């Protein structure tokens, strides 16, 4: 055998021990450990399919183990629609090698060549009829070795389980219902904690009369550290009452720190920022030598958006003092719905001045996760309260108003696009400029600790203004800003704000939402100016055959050519290849605009290469499109000078059952292409398709989201 092959998938190269990825149990079960976590997207089921197929076992034999530090491979964050690409490719290679190792063990036992053996649901058979199984041979030492990448994974044509709609493994528990969420944990002796956040962004806690709260029967302790204020009680209802009392008794000094929400674009354009050229291509002016005859430009705007998961952020923590009573030797256990157990462990250790091995972090599912929400912050809250009551676990659940008001937001942005076009209206040069905060304040990305409570503690540093991942890793504000069309010249510039009045971070599709909304709206504006059909206009300038294919598929499926406009209805298209490197998606929206904008139907075509679980992928695309429709039609974080005011469902409305459009999704054949994540691909195209359909319906180009009556009126020509 050779040394570790440089060919290993990155996740496997970083975590090469095979036994860290899977374990065969004599009971006929394979335990599979991924560093990726279930966010409600069905990823554990998809990964179980990959493992089962490579091992030649039925998927029911695979038990997915929730990610935990010290136990699971370190795969960083579960984000960016990369789980199947990262963890799936690692499991594929690891399981193929594990299969080969177990076959080798059987071959040695029988003294036959391994390549004559077959495996069926874990039963290994020799041509002479002898048989054994993984379960009989189960031996952890067999996999206690680094992966070599020597075993060839299956060819896609031989998949039996990958590519089929295996039902989600987590749903039976959720419907039974059996406790599955971090909110449902009930550890022995568990206490309940609540946090009293500052009443506004710039507030300082002057004094708190903790007397009335501590006098409540069942209150264990009040924890104050700078502007961090929390309470621990024997019962949840007592914790809630005590938090209310603390809120009444606390005296804060407040000062306005937030910009004028009614003129947010002006703030974004004027705020101090770091300017960088993200991409540039100076091609020939025009291949046919035709001169530019016209220029167009337009400004687009998206507001801050909230994650607004159905369940608020929550966590449980337990601080166990060392037997010697040495405070420095405390062990901290945390149960969290974080997207990354290892990054959170490192950040908690840093914030609490503990060694990383004093902290263990386990993933327990939360409500749907669409990016960097309050999960990590809640873990820090729970840790701070748990350290005040060593020996007893403390569960913290955020209030709805904190969830909508204090979790990170998807950043507001202004996008300006300008283009020079030739006499036919084809683009000769394209300029894309973005103003707004970055999309990354995840724990571990900056020197100041990236956890809300850490910034509120005495001496805590403010969370650093959000950064952006580089474009080659998908980018942040610049995600999908590079045009996917074959424009002869383009330039993409980002103005990343160096102040951050509201904390921003990664929300599903990051900058892709605003950029695709802007690009695809502008494409329609250019097509209209040239008197051309929006679909023909796009296809004429799109070289990528897979991109063309999804546009052609969606126009066919939606009946684009046969559309007959009626009264107040309209249709529109939006297209993008997510991150310019992931799944292709085209959306046709049909809307009706009478007293408000109603989306009647979304028809979607997606090319995601090999689809591991067709029904799961469809569910993701459908859900992504509905969420994007909600963002586009309704959502906008509201605030005054002091604080966020859209802190309840009636002040932060989302799309309801009776408002949700019909959604029809078509997947293109995989054609042997590698799998691409689908969870975020529909976000931008859906927004643009709806805005374009609205323009088709009423002739008004609305360039500021959400597409409410108020914004439509504001966009009407004088």
């Amino acid at each position: 055998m050779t040394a570790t092959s440089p060919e290993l998938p990155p996740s496997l190269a970083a975590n090469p021990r095979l036994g860290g990825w899977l374990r065969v149990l004599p009971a006929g079960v394979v335990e599979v450990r991924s560093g990726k976590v279930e966010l409600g997207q069905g990823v554990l089921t998809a990964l179980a399919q990959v493992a089962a197929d490579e091992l030649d076992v039925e998927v029911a034999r695979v038990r997915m183990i929730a990610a935990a530090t010290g136990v699971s491979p370190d795969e960083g964050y579960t984000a960016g629609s990369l789980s199947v690409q990262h963890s799936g490719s690692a499991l594929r290679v690891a399981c193929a090698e594990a299969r080969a190792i177990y076959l080798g063990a059987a071959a040695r036992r029988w003294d036959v060549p391994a390549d004559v053996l077959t495996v069926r649901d874990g039963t290994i058979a020799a041509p002479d009829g002898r048989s054994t199984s993984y379960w009989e041979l189960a031996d952890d030492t067999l996999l206690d070795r680094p992966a070599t990448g020597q075993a060839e994974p299956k060819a896609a044509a031989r998949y039996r389980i990958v590519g089929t709609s295996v039902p989600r493994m987590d749903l039976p528990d959720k419907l039974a219902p059996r406790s599955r969420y971090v909110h449902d944990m009930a550890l022995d002796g568990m206490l309940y904690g609540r946090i009293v956040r500052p009443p506004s962004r710039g507030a300082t806690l002057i004094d708190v009369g903790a007397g009335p709260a501590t006098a409540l029967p069942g209150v264990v302790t009040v924890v104050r550290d700078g502007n961090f204020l929390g309470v621990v009680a024997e019962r949840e209802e007592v914790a809630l009452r005590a938090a209310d009392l603390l809120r009444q008794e606390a005296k804060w000094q407040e000062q306005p720190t937030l910009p004028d929400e009614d003129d947010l674009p002006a703030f974004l354009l004027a705020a101090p920022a770091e300017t960088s050229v993200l991409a540039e291509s100076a091609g020939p002016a025009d291949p046919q030598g035709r001169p530019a005859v016209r220029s167009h430009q337009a400004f687009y705007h998206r507001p801050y958006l909230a994650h607004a998961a159905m369940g608020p952020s929550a966590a449980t923590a337990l601080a166990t003092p060392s037997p010697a009573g040495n405070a420095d030797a405390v062990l901290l256990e945390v149960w969290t719905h974080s997207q990354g157990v290892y990054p959170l462990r490192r950040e908690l250790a840093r914030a609490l001045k503990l060694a990383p091995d004093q902290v263990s972090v386990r993933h327990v599912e939360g409500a749907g996760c669409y990016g960097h929400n309050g999960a990590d912050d809640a873990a820090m809250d729970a840790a701070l309260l748990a350290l005040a009551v060593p020996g007893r676990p403390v569960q913290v659940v955020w209030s709805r108003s904190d969830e909508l008001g204090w979790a990170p937001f998807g950043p507001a942005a202004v996008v300006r696009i300008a283009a020079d076009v030739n006499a036919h209206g084809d683009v000769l040069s394209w300029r894309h400029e973005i103003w707004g905060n970055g999309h990354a304040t995840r724990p571990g990305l900056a020197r100041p600790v990236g956890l809300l409570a850490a910034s509120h503690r005495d001496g805590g540093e403010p969370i650093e203004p959000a950064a952006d991942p580089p474009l080659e890793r998908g980018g942040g504000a610049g995600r999908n800003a590079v045009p996917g069309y074959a424009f002869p010249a383009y330039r993409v510039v980002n103005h990343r704000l160096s102040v951050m009045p509201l904390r921003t971070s990664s929300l599903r599709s990051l900058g892709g939402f605003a950029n695709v909304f802007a690009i695809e709206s502008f494409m329609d504006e250019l097509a209209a100016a040239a008197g051309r059909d929006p679909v023909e206009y796009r296809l004429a300038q799109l070289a990528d055959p897979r991109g063309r294919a999804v546009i052609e598929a969606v126009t066919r499926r939606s009946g684009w050519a046969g559309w007959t406009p009626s009264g107040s209805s309209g249709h529109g298209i939006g297209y993008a290849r997510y991150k310019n490197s992931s799944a292709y998606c085209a959306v046709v929206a049909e809307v009706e605009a009478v007293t408000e904008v109603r989306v009647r139907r979304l028809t979607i075509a997606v090319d995601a290469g090999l689809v591991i679980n067709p029904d799961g992928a469809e569910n993701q695309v459908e859900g992504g499109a509905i969420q994007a429709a909600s963002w586009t039609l309704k959502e906008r974080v509201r605030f005054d000078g002091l604080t966020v005011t859209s802190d309840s469902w009636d002040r932060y409305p989302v799309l309801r059952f009776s408002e949700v459009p019909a959604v029809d999704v078509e997947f293109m054949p995989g054609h042997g292409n590698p799998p691409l994540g689908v969870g975020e691909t529909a976000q931008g195209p859906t927004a643009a398709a709806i805005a374009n359909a609205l323009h088709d319906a009423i002739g008004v180009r609305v360039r500021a989201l959400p597409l409410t009556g108020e914004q439509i009126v504001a966009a009407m020509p004088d």
Partner: protein
Amino acid sequence: MPDTDPARVTVLVNGRPEEVRTEPDTALLYVLRNHLGLKGTRFGCGLGLCGACLVLIDGRPAYSCDTPLWAVQDRDVTTVEGLGAPGRPHPVAQAILDGQAAQCGYCISGVVIGAAGLLAENDDPSEDEVRSALDRNLCRCGAHNRIVRAVLAAASALRASR
């Protein structure tokens, strides 16, 4: 302060009288989840605006997060756990599983309760009636259309079983 013995309150949950010790103004939600260990009823907002905490009170969907315990004395509370039986889920829950009509699933207990309440009154609802009945439930993952199809399928299953 030590947790001195609070009031004893008896409440009828899933057909069983249960004695709990808490203040009478405690929201029913916390009694169900923590005192009785019925974790299927979920906290979403605490204001009766999202439906994650729905239970049936005397057969009608009600928000347990803003219903004080004193208000359900002598009433019949049914939680999602009380709708089906082990191995025999309620037809709505079964149809949701069959149709893979959930993503994160956090809203789904409330959806099952809301839909069960609807089907108890109308076992042949139109799609619009289902949507309008479910408007008191929020779903953030975008599983709405699958859920609506599942409720309609559950309605047919219920009718067929009669």
